[in-house]
């Protein structure tokens, strides 16, 4: 993570310098202040520094452990963690899609259809959220 922090700090410094140069150069050339480019460059500096600051905080709270990308001897496998739990297959997205589709049909055709769709949306969204919290999968 150290390397990422350094890269982002370099980017932040670069955008800050180019922003200042842009404004000063523009002024010396006798043009009036140009808000879009000036703000864009300075805000890019702020954003890069902000992410560097955030990563630095994460790095410190993790006690400065090295990520695979910081180690010259790391393998590709090492940076391929278990990201989370994803359903191998599920009917719920289809159910939710049809229910929301029905609700949008209500917006287009007649508002009363929405009241018909609401129960379906609620069942679909709870069904999807709790798919792996019931029955066989209860934990």
């Amino acid at each position: 993570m150290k390397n990422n922090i350094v890269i982002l700090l370099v980017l932040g410094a670069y955008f800050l310098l180019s922003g200042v140069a842009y404004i000063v150069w523009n002024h010396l050339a006798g043009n009036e202040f140009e808000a879009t480019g000036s703000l864009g460059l300075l805000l890019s500096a702020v954003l890069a520094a902000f992410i560097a600051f955030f990563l630095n905080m994460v790095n410190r709270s993790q006690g400065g452990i090295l990520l695979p990308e910081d180690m010259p001897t790391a393998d590709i496998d090492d940076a391929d963690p278990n990201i989370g739990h994803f359903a191998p297959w599920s009917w719920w997205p289809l159910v939710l899609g049809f229910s929301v589709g029905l609700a949008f049909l209500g917006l287009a055709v007649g508002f009363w259809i929405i009241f018909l769709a609401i129960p379906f949306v609620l069942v679909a969204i709870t069904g999807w959220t709790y798919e792996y919290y019931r029955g066989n999968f209860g934990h």
Partner: protein
Amino acid sequence: MFFAGLFAIYFTLRAAVPEMWAEDSALLNFPFSLTNTIILVSSSVTAQFGVFAAERLQSRATGWKPSQWGMVEWFFLTYVLGAIFVTGQVYEYAMLVSEGITFNGNAYGTAFYLTTGFHGLHVTGGLIAFLLVIGRAFAVKNFGHKEATSAIVVSYYWHFVDVVWIGLFLVIYVLR
């Protein structure tokens, strides 16, 4: 991106008819909206305390003191604060409609209800998401990393919606 588009609508219309803006935005109740804003911002703080509890993998309170609260208690408090905000918005809409600012009345009304209304819908969606996360904490025997992750994700959403409101508040109620 979506709210950037709504801000663009607001600013374009404001630049086109400045006198309408000056006249209609004078009807806004600034102290009321400021109170509502403070309630929403504090709900973000309580949501973050809920996240801290979730990161300790503590779903329920171990005592009555807030320092002993679990994720569920903090998120219920967040839910109440968010619900007060939405109720306040509905009350404010009712007041404004009674004073003649309506959605289909003029450009100011359209821009006002479109921006704050879509924000209100997002807050309402966040409230439902909080209920689903609280439900997950009740559904499991052991509150684990998977449940903590869903709590953290919902809190990100909530903070985002909060930040958008701060932008809307500054533009609509402070800049006018």
